[in-house]
């Protein structure tokens, strides 16, 4: 590794080689600290400190003394229900985007590079379009006389038109379309790296298609599935826009509750406690991901250890 600045020849007339290299490395360290300072200070003040003060607020009673009763409130009655709804909708969304993402990623990974590139553009571009706008698009599509219901009625689909908005179906559809680009990209990255000859080898040994899929393909894709599933779940937990616009009262999620408590009820302590609970759930998810990743690593390396 080289340095950015001229070697300090002038400052060190004929130093021992060791001293020179130490001076150089100190210089590089100082340079690094100097450049890292702005972002670190910025994030400490505007990211870490605010979260820390949220934590403090959530532990403070009306009289300023330490209390856990905001947390107790969060796990009671209507609030507990909202918490459970959040977990349920997040789980449904992650599951659906895993399944749909799996199919699309598998299809793309078989395409020629040019086509695969084009399809990935179609996947990625929506991701950069405001989620708010895409949610609005779903509201137009899924309304009682929206495109989807009109098409289904036109096809004489039994039961059409369906109620697709302001219930859980609507929320899960909307949220899934927001999360799908993540799962497709994560799964595609893993699938592209799979050696397809392994499947051919399994077939040559007489394995059926289902066995190959179950015993060869899925285990190879598993790390991507775990990664995408957990990440999707975490991102859903704090999601607000789609549930607020496409859900009914029964689909209220924690983020909406926090918003109501702060904006309408001036209930900052309770909102802080809910925020910290979301944060802890996120950490739990990340920890689970780490554990599963290292467990997978160990499993793959079994037998190679001395």
């Amino acid at each position, binding site marked *: 590794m080289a340095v950015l600045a001229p070697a300090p020849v002038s400052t060190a007339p004929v130093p021992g080689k060791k001293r020179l290299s130490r001076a150089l490395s100190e210089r590089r360290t100082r340079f690094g600290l100097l450049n890292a300072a702005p972002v670190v200070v910025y*994030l400490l003040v505007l990211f870490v400190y605010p979260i820390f003060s949220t934590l403090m607020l959530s532990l403070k009673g009306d009289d300023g003394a330490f209390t856990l009763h905001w947390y107790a409130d969060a796990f009671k009655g209507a609030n507990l229900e909202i918490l459970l709804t959040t977990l349920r909708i997040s789980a449904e969304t992650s599951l659906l985007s895993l399944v749909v993402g799996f199919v699309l990623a598998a299809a793309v990974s*078989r395409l020629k590079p040019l086509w695969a590139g084009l399809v990935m553009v179609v996947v990625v*571009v*929506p991701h*950069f379009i405001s989620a708010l706008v895409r949610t609005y698009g779903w509201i137009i599509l899924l309304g009682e006389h929206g495109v989807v219901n009109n098409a289904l009625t036109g096809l004489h689909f039994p039961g059409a038109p369906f109620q697709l908005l302001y219930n859980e179906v609507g929320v899960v559809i909307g949220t899934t379309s927001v999360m799908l680009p993540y799962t497709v990209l994560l799964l595609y990255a893993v699938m592209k790296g799979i050696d397809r000859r392994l499947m051919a080898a399994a077939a040559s040994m007489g394995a059926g298609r289902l066995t190959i899929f179950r015993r060869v393909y899925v285990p190879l894709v598993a790390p991507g599935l775990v990664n995408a599933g957990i990440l999707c779940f975490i991102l859903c937990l704090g999601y607000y826009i789609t549930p607020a616009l496409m859900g009914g009262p029964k689909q209220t999620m924690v*983020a909406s509750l926090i918003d109501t408590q702060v904006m309408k009820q001036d209930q900052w302590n309770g909102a802080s406690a809910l925020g910290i609970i979301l944060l802890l759930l996120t950490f739990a998810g990340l920890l689970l991901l780490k554990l599963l990743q290292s467990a997978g690593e160990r499993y793959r390396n079994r037998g190679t250890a001395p």
Partner: protein
Amino acid sequence: MTELRSTLAGRITLTVLSTLTLLFLVLPIVVIVITSFGKDAFGSFPPSSWTLNWYKVLFADGSKWPAAVSLSVLVACLTTVFSLILGMTAATALVRSDLPLRTAVYGLVLAPLVIPQVVVALGLFLLFEPAAMLGSPVAIALGHTVLASPIAVMILMATLKGIDERLEDAAASMGASRLTVARRITFPLAMPGLIAAAIFSFITSFDEFFISQFLSSVDTVTLPVQVFNVLQYDVDPSVTAISAILIAVAVLALALVAVVRRLGGSGQQEGLLPTEPGVGLAAGGETAS
């Protein structure tokens, strides 16, 4: 034969399913663009007759959209400046130096991408409310920078890694000062990356909803917050037109990034996205608060 042949039925099923999935991603966007030109706002689809009226309404007297648009542009510009400064220094520290606690610094920089945005927004609200800074464009931009800077750092780290360090050393060995090296060598070479980082920071801020929602006041409202309010409370067909404009802005911005990358042409970065799968994706991410 080194590959397992897929059956015809399998191929057809896969093609049909993936086409449906692509439609699933694209339809909500297409439907807005088409509806925005339709006479009957959100009535039937496809619209029976066409009009540009919804776009004209946006800029009519008494419309609340121009104020929201200009606030959003101002905030996004401030965010872009902040996030480029933080991004360039941080990327330099992470790629071009021996930084003690490098992993910790890197983790801190990426953390805002996975932390629920409600939590960030709530914390910022608690910070700015007592300071009576709610509704200030600077406060909103400072908040957006928390989300935009990780993306800028990732893009610029990839860019710096792609620049041959020996060019900088060569200039330095000829007596160029650190500042001259940065100005004459590093910045010109990093220009495509800088432009990409600027564009992604801009869109991140321009589309951001949740932090803006918490930091807005009654009379300073950013565009996404305005759109949300209209969708939630009063029905106003011009929201379709503004949504179509937001789509156009995002698509143009992405096209610009693609062009810059192509012209920059070093080819070390493929595709539209910054490196690091998953986290990198969060680039547009926050839009999804």
